[in-house]
């Protein structure tokens, strides 16, 4: 009996820890959301409900441009890195592939390096080759850091692949293209969606690598937000942030499929 009560004590402790961590994780975000509706110029006490910062947001041209840039870069880098991810994962399916170790090493090493190192090295590459920094260089950088993630996520999905289906189709005389589009691709699709989603989020989220590879005049949202915080004009940032959080919540809550993909992507 004594042990049972001790167990309960530990369970209680874990529950307490969980609750505290939840409060820790969500309080700042909640406050941010609440204060985006606060009718005050600076962050002091509650001054009444307003939507004016959302209206200001709508009229802000540089935010609109940063948003367009972010979506463009995220969309293109997701597309390229997912296609490269599918191809590479298919290549790695062959266990006797003589380049397996080399390819795996090049895929895994970028993941375990601090982001700042990729930022510095790409900045120096673009300086050395005298390439003008801007949209093009940011796009290259984003594709570079997304590839590792897409390959790994898609590859992990292919690990549990049921090859008896492919063999059955081959025995029945199906052509390779048919086998790919009718069997392999549909089975890979959840992995591809998870990979694309991860790449998209990583791209939208990235600050440091973009910071090193974007020139003046090409801002993504994180770069714009950081600059605004530094300059101290933060009122619209609250409302902008709230919208971005709402976007994440929308993705997580609305679709079960996306939620599953998000969990499996990690």
């Amino acid at each position, binding site marked *: 009996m004594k042990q049972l009560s001790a167990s309960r004590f530990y369970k209680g402790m874990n529950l307490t820890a969980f609750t505290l961590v939840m409060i820790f994780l969500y309080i*700042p975000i909640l406050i941010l959301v609440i204060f985006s509706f606060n009718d005050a110029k600076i962050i002091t006490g509650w001054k009444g409900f307003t939507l004016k910062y959302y209206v200001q947001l709508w009229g802000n041209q540089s935010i609109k441009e940063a948003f367009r840039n972010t979506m463009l870069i995220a969309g293109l880098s997701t597309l390229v890195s997912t296609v490269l991810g599918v191809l590479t994962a298919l290549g790695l399916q062959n266990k006797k592939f003589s*380049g397996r170790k080399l390819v795996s090493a090049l895929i895994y090493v970028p993941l375990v390096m601090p982001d700042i190192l990729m930022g510095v090295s790409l900045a120096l590459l673009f300086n050395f080759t005298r390439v003008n920094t801007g949209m093009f260089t940011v796009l290259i950088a984003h594709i570079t850091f997304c590839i590792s993630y897409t390959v790994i996520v898609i590859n992990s999905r292919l690990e549990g692949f049921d090859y008896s289906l492919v063999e059955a189709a081959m025995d029945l005389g199906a052509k390779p293209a048919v086998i790919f589009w009718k069997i392999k691709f549909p089975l890979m699709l959840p992995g591809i969606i998870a990979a694309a989603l991860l790449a998209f989020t990583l791209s939208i989220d990235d600050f440091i690598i973009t910071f090193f590879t974007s020139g003046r005049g090409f801002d993504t949202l*994180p770069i714009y937000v950081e600059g605004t915080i530094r300059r101290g004009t933060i009122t619209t940032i609250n409302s902008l942030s709230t919208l971005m959080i709402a976007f994440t919540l929308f993705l997580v809550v609305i679709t079960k499929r996306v939620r599953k993909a998000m969990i499996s992507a990690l």
Partner: protein
Amino acid sequence: MTRENKQDWSRQNDLVKKADSRRNLASWALSAPALFWLIVFFLVPYLIVVIYSFLTPDIYDVKFEFSLDAYRQAFNSAYLNTFLQSFKLAFLTTLLCLLFGFPVAYFIARAKDKTKNALLVFIIIPFWTNLIIRIFSWRIFLAYNGVLNDVLMNIGLISQPLEIMRTDLAVMLVMVYVYLPYMILPLYSVLEKLDFTLLHAAMDLGANDVKAFFHITLPLSVEGIFAGSLLVFIPSLGAYLIPQLVGNQKTLYLGQVITYKIKNIPRNWPMASALSLTLLLFVALLLFLGYMLYKHQKSRRIA
């Protein structure tokens, strides 16, 4: 075996070999685009970092003159202190994440299957929320005239606002906040597979909770602890945004110093390169140690 059979067998063997080499070629072709991309945009840039670290700085650029100054300066006391600060921050962040993350991961792992996924989503939402927004929300929370001080003063706990923003404490707090999910998720995936009947057996045999924890739960979750610690420690070493936005300029961390050397004028790209390479070396060493420990652990388990 007859002669004919043998011939047949060797012909088949040839066919298999041919098919193998064709598949090998296909694999090379399929991985070629990513391989090419990573060589050009991941490996080559590091070579340029190595070259730049031996050059002479210029105000806006570099001069192509050989110099060892960058390395000489990197091991000078001011920079050693920066390294030390970054290590301290990364170490404490990892430790605190482990301390808070473990009970949370354990709690989720032992929840009912239905609640499990819901609880995981709660951990993952902040993870998928923009980093800069999460940092920014702490600025609002901790600011001198921010919400925390407001609440504490209204309750009457303090009479003067606390100055938490722009301190090392704030950096620490936000670091733990940002990296906690990176610790919880690998811990969870290990604890989820843990066979809890072992724990019950141990307790039936008279072990108490503490004993059972240290003799069963902890050793069996070592892999998750490794993975989580590396996932937290390594990016923490190069942190820039968090110390930049909630820290002060008195304590500079490695990520900040490297960034200033590249972005601020006068630029010192050789210095940034030398510091980056030193960081790279530390990370490589750490990963190697982690790998050795992992192998050791694995061989011990098989034995």
